């Protein structure tokens, strides 16, 4: 029952964090869908590469910032100062910080794919990397909600 009780001042950062995380989940999924679809829809590679690139630029980046800023804000309230953060918070940091490298790689590939007309190995790499990042987001979501330990 303690998990149900939280100060009102935590609600707004939590709302921003969850909203950012859900939109990030959806926009990364869109990048993956566009990557996979360009492997099976010959003649539409350029269109799908553009969809992936624009979704990354206007969806993934803003939602990542919203999710991460909300996380930092609420962690600052829940574990102020030098308070040690529990493992489930650390899982979130692992997904968002080292995971940022994967996200940057997705962005670079999406940009290159869009410039080169889409399709080919770049589209496959885009779909695979975006799927891996989706799995990582799933693990983070589980850790944030189940709070093991």
């Amino acid at each position, binding site marked *: *029952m303690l*998990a*149900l009780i939280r100060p*009102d001042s935590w*609600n707004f950062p*939590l*709302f921003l964090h*969850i*909203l950012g*995380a*859900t*939109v990030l*989940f*959806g*926009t990364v*999924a*869109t990048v993956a*869908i*566009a990557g996979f*679809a360009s492997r099976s*829809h010959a003649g*539409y590679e350029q*269109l*799908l590469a*553009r*969809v992936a690139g*624009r*979704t990354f630029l206007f*969806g993934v980046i803003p*939602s990542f910032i919203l999710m991460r800023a909300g996380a930092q804000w609420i962690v600052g309230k829940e574990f102020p100062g030098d308070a040690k953060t529990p493992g489930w918070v650390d899982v979130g940091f692992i997904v968002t910080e080292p995971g940022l490298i994967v996200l940057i790689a997705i962005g670079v590939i999406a940009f290159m794919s869009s410039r080169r007309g889409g399709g080919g190995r770049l589209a496959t790499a885009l779909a695979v990397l975006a799927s891996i990042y989706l799995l990582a987001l799933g693990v983070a*979501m*589980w850790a*944030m*909600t*189940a*709070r*093991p330990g």
Partner: protein
Amino acid sequence: MNTYQWLLVFHVTGAFLLLGGGAIAAALSLSALGRERPSEILLLFGLIRIAVVAISVGTALAFVFGLWLVHEAGYGYFDGWVVAAFVLLIVANAMGGAGGKRDQATVKLARDLAASGDAPSPELKARVHDPISLALSYGSGLVLIAVLALMVWKPGA
């Protein structure tokens, strides 16, 4: 993990699929707004079906495990925020469903045009930019964000 934690995991997974599916649909329909070739519009609207599956599964998970959570956590089924959240979830689904039905007609037109030369058509463009469809679809997304706010703040709980 206790029962509450398991229920919360499934409920939040549903919320992620629901809102994430909405984000997928929004990204693809926004991309369709900028296209004119019927086959391209057909492809993008076709991919939205993946989002519809995510939204449907997400709605079911969020609803069923949400009801279970209300019982498990000791809230009342007739608490104001619970009733408001369920009403808004139904409204969001009704709006999304109505927008989706209008989009079906757009898909049919795009399919016919793609099969007969794939030339841009003012009628198809008007359908893709149909303000009622757009208002229903994006309005549905805004209502879902309001549901998320209710879930976080739980006013009156």
